[in-house]
């Protein structure tokens, strides 16, 4: 039983950063931006979260810094793709590489370490115990006692669903993606909508990054986002942006991640850490087959 609970909690923890980044990605997806910079935003967020938490001895400042770090990348993306009209894919790839370089450089310059920075001075984001619920057998150990960011991610799913499908902003956001000229001629600047969507994506990726370095573990390692931004992109594409679908797919990836850790007892870790990426490939493969079938029906 404890193994099951451990596996489920591992799954939730692994799913959270992917979920948050994918929710950000879904906003830009609806806005019609080919945004692959979630990876870079998340990594930058993770680094600055540690920076804030370490120097100000506060996880709140840590999250704040994490969000600002991710927004930094988002702003560069906005500058290049919206103002200078540079190709979004090129911008995204450039920024992802830039984020690795920037965080590695700053890690060495500020903390004078190579590879990883860990210190008792980094204040982690607390876990939240929910009274009453925590006493429920089995379920209590899953529903309660999760990291604060996990609950934020859950609220974000609901909030993003509401935002995209029920509000004025959502109507305009999707319009920007479906037909931006139409939105522009309706008197709403599609660039402004894209700007907002990228900023929101930055904030969500900031939370994802903070969770990585202040929740999942309490340290920063070089390139610690390790492809989660890319997986979140796959999740967005897989479910065509539907936030609830993203939540499910993220859990699936989280499960693959947890499974990888679990399998480490019997398999070399090089193979087990492949599991989430292999799962991504399989998911994309299934998606393409399903899409083909659907198209044949039309």
């Amino acid at each position, binding site marked *: 039983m404890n193994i099951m609970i451990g596996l489920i909690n591992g799954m939730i923890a692994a799913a959270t950063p992917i979920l948050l980044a994918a929710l950000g990605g879904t906003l830009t997806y609806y806005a019609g931006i080919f945004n692959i910079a979630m990876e870079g935003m998340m990594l930058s967020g993770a680094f600055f979260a540690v920076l804030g938490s370490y120097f100000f001895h506060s996880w709140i400042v840590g999250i704040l810094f994490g969000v600002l770090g991710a927004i930094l990348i988002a702003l560069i993306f906005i500058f290049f793709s919206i103002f200078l009209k540079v190709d979004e894919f090129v911008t995204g790839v450039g920024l992802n590489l830039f984020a690795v370089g920037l965080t590695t450089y700053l890690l060495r310059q500020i903390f004078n370490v190579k590879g990883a920075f860990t210190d008792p001075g980094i204040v982690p984001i607390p876990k939240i115990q929910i009274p009453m619920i925590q006493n429920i057998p089995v379920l209590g150990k899953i529903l309660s006692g999760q990291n604060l960011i996990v609950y934020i991610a859950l609220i974000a799913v609901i909030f993003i669903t509401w935002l995209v499908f*029920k*509000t*004025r*902003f959502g*109507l*305009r956001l*999707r*319009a920007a993606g*479906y*037909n931006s*000229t*139409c*939105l*522009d*001629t*309706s*008197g*709403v600047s599609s660039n402004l909508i894209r700007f907002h969507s990228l900023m929101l994506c930055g904030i969500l990726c900031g939370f994802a990054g903070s969770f990585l370095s202040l929740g999942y573990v309490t340290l920063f390692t070089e390139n610690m986002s390790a492809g989660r931004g890319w997986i979140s992109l796959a999740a967005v594409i897989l479910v065509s942006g539907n936030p609830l679908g993203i939540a499910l797919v993220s859990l699936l990836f989280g499960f693959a991640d947890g499974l990888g850790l679990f399998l480490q007892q019997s398999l070399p870790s090089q193979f087990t850490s492949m599991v989430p990426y292999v799962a991504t490939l399989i998911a994309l493969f299934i998606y393409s087959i399903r899409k083909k079938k659907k198209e*044949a*029906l*039309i």
Partner: protein
Amino acid sequence: MMTDVITMDHIVKVFPPNVVALDDVSVTFREGEIHAVVGENGAGKTTLMKILYGMQEANSGNIFFKGNQVRFNKPGEAISSGIGMVHQEILLIPEYTIWENVILGVEPTGYFGKIDRQKSRQKVKQQIDEFQFHLDPDARVEDISVAARQKVEILKLLYRNVSFLILDEPTSVLTPQEIPQLFDELRRMRDNGRTIVYISHHLEEVLELSDRITVLRKGSKIDTIESSGATKRSLSQMMVGREVIFESIRKQQKTGDVVFDMSGVDYSFPKNRPLLQSIQMQIRAGEIVGIAGVEGNGQLELVNIIMGLIKPDHGKIEIQGDDFTHASILERRKKISFVSQDRANMGSCLNASISENILMTHHRLNSRFSKWNGIVLEKAQINKFSEEVRNSFDIQMDSTDAEMRSLSGGNQQKTILGRELSLDTPFLLLDQPTRGLDVGSIEYVHEHILQMKDEGHAILLLSADLEELFRLSDRILVLHRGQIVANLETEHTSIEEVGILMLEGGAQ
């Protein structure tokens, strides 16, 4: 007494480097009139309206709106002043419902920006009823007809309290049956006190609908006249500066051997949905066969099968007795000239130069344009050839090295026709060769097509314009739900008969 709403005063627009699009044009639009702006392609109709609407800036001249000088910097400003424009290409979001499309940009909202669905739908419904548009506000735009989409565009402007509507060639996307309905709606709007500017080059429509007509020619205003005194002939004379013949210009002539022979062609996609069924046709040398049909009844598939872009399930295609059913596209091109209805994508490459566009296909079929087995192009030969095509097809351009994109629609089409007709193949496939062209260019294209017929080419002509089919074809085949339901001698049929067959199929 009608008051002036908008006065455009001495408008000049020059496109760099030296193309004068509008040369000192002054027009006044009065309240509550339908005012048509007519002219050939490239005459400056759309440019004039885009300047009024704030999509382009004039080099000089002033615009007065209800007596005050205005200058809109973007369409949004024009709309909030009550001026709206329905563009040639429909700008809606197919994935959205009608009401969502209508409210986009001016959404009634409740708390925290939540859209008030109830109120939005109610308002849109009210407007639909007021103008008798017969639309379901909850229908998705992707599911409704083109005519209905156009109504949604108009509705969108009415929702924004626009009192001055500009429509850019609204009937170009409609079927003949849908046009009278649009006209009724436009008249109803006029009677409600709105002003309508109607850009068109269909003279019958303009005469039927409008109160006054402004004629532009090559960027200059010729005159503004009352429609009541005008005729088609006088208008076209003003438009092109000379008289255009509208009568049938076909000559009877002996036809030769069968050139193009298609038999038993079936095509389904997917498997259970037949798009073409047992298509049978023979076209002789010196014969023009027209295909009539409402769009989407198999024309696209027919063209793609002839060109080898899709493979038929059954059937056979022969050209001059040789089997072409499975021939490669290049093989086909040796025998088939092809004018695609998709001028910008399939017919030409807008980013390439004009001479490159003229050369396409020729460079694969004619060895004089290259040396070393087609590796190096012969620039001198190519230039000479482009100049020939340019002269014999009267293409207006600065230089053959300019981008295809820089040409007006009519000149692009002439370039494509020039390329295809100089291939000198026994069979010609012309898919909407005059769509979107003005009267002068259409006449020009028709002359060339008839000349090809005289020279003994076999021609298959697809056109949505029945008058064109009747003018040119010897026989008309009616395509309905993927079947040829009639094979009519043009002499012994009428537009009305073909129209009914197009809509209802055979005489079952």
